[in-house]
């Protein structure tokens, strides 16, 4: 029995989208058999090769289109926005480059060829700043997913503009007599200090070596943001490893991105307790005990943990966040007498478990 030419069949298979292969190669096979029976094997082989070659462009185009559609339907809204942002940022950068380059060439002609060498440095400088601003703003090719961090980055991107102006134009805007005071090189330490204060610690390359005084991580309400989803105002806090104080609230970082707040509660308060729980494959049982100063149990709760979905970051350098469980417990304090207490949060999956403690104090209500 004569079979279709193997090479032609391989070319045909390669050119087709996976979803088309079954039906189209079957059609080729059926037609090949029909021609072989009526006109002979040579005519059938020739037909197979001719059809394969003639169908190649349309098959490949259809395969590419299908692949693009599949990729687009699989990507998230954030990924789509990222793709648009990359295009937008690239267009802006090219546009800025062309405008500045064009202006440089005009100036070069006007000054008889003396300008271009000097224009290249400012051109690179301007493009660098544009790149930084785009990176920190919504045009960034890699937009930050966390809304709070994104808001901070946008503010920092806006702050880069005055720095750019300070750097680029002091010798042009300052009166000649004062230019030695605001000359560029004398601004370098000032700009470096400001940049250190503004730069998010998570992006520091040498995070551990920068003295804390240069980078106050608990920032002012200047950076607070209103989240559109729930209209709440958020104060983003990059908590340092040691405790920091805002008013009468002490903020500490218990672990990677976990913020704890130690404070004195009034008896009329209801404490809402959120606690992340690391989970494995087995279901986790959580109990929360409120212990008195003498370690007797004043109250016990059995909250049911809710399991989060894992988070995959688009940026290759960020670790994926594995699924975690979280308890959300509302604990009215009016049943507790004023005094010092200790929360004991115990999580166990039957074979292993751990307990974390947090101290708090209930103060008498102030009338």
């Amino acid at each position, binding site marked *: 029995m004569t079979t279709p030419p193997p090479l032609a069949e391989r070319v045909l298979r390669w050119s087709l989208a996976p979803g088309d292969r079954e*039906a*189209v190669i*079957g059609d080729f096979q*059926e*037609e090949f058999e029909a021609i072989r029976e009526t006109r002979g094997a040579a005519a059938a082989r020739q037909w197979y090769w001719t059809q394969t070659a*003639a169908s190649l462009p349309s*098959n490949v185009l259809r395969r590419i289109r299908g692949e693009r559609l599949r990729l687009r339907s699989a990507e998230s809204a954030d990924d789509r926005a990222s793709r648009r942002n990359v295009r937008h940022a690239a267009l802006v950068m090219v546009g800025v480059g062309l405008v500045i380059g064009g202006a440089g060439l005009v100036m070069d002609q006007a000054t008889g060829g003396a300008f271009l060498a000097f224009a290249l440095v400012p051109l690179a400088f301007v493009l660098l700043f544009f790149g930084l601003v785009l990176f920190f703003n919504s045009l960034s090719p890699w937009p930050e997913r966390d809304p709070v961090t994104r808001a901070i980055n946008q503010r920092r991107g806006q702050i880069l503009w005055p720095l750019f102006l300070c750097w680029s134009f002091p010798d042009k805007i300052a009166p000649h007599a004062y230019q030695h005071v605001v000359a560029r090189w004398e601004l370098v330490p000032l700009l470096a200090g400001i940049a250190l204060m503004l730069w998010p610690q998570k992006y520091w390359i040498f995070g551990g070596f920068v003295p804390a005084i240069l980078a106050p991580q608990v920032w002012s309400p200047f950076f607070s943001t209103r989240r559109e989803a729930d209209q709440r105002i958020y104060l983003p806090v990059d908590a340092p490893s040691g405790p920091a104080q805002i008013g009468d609230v002490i903020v500490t970082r218990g672990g990677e991105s976990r913020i704890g707040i130690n404070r004195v509660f009034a008896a009329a308060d209801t404490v809402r307790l959120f606690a992340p729980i690391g989970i494995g494959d087995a279901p986790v049982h959580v109990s929360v005990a409120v212990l008195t100063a003498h370690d007797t149990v004043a109250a016990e709760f059995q909250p049911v943990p809710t399991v989060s979905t894992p988070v995959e970051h688009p940026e290759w350098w960020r670790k994926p966040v594995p699924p975690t469980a979280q308890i959300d417990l509302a604990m009215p304090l009016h049943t507790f007498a004023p005094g010092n207490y200790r929360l004991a949060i115990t999580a166990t999956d039957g074979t292993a478990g751990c307990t974390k403690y947090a101290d708090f104090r209930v103060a008498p209500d102030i009338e």
Partner: protein
Amino acid sequence: MALPPSLGEFEQLVLLAIVHQDDEAYGVTIRREIEERTRRRVTVGALYTALDRLEKKGLVTSTMSKPTSERGGRSKRYFALTSTGEKALRHAHDTFTRMWAGLESTLRPSRG
């Protein structure tokens, strides 16, 4: 009322071939039907490109059959006209009929 999607010439031929083949409309039979009736060569790639486009427009639907031995154990992809496809075909026919009206005596039909 919204007009049905407009059809190119080849798309009309493909849709008409599907109607002619009724329950037996798949790649091979559609292509043969067009080649026999129009006496023009149709490549398999061009046919499937048109069929994909028609399916995206919602004018045809496709279903895979069970594998058959004469095709090396491969399935057939059967095509059927949707109601939108039928409307589009009818609309194209009406448009041509209106455009031809009164021209029959002016433009003589070609021989062959």
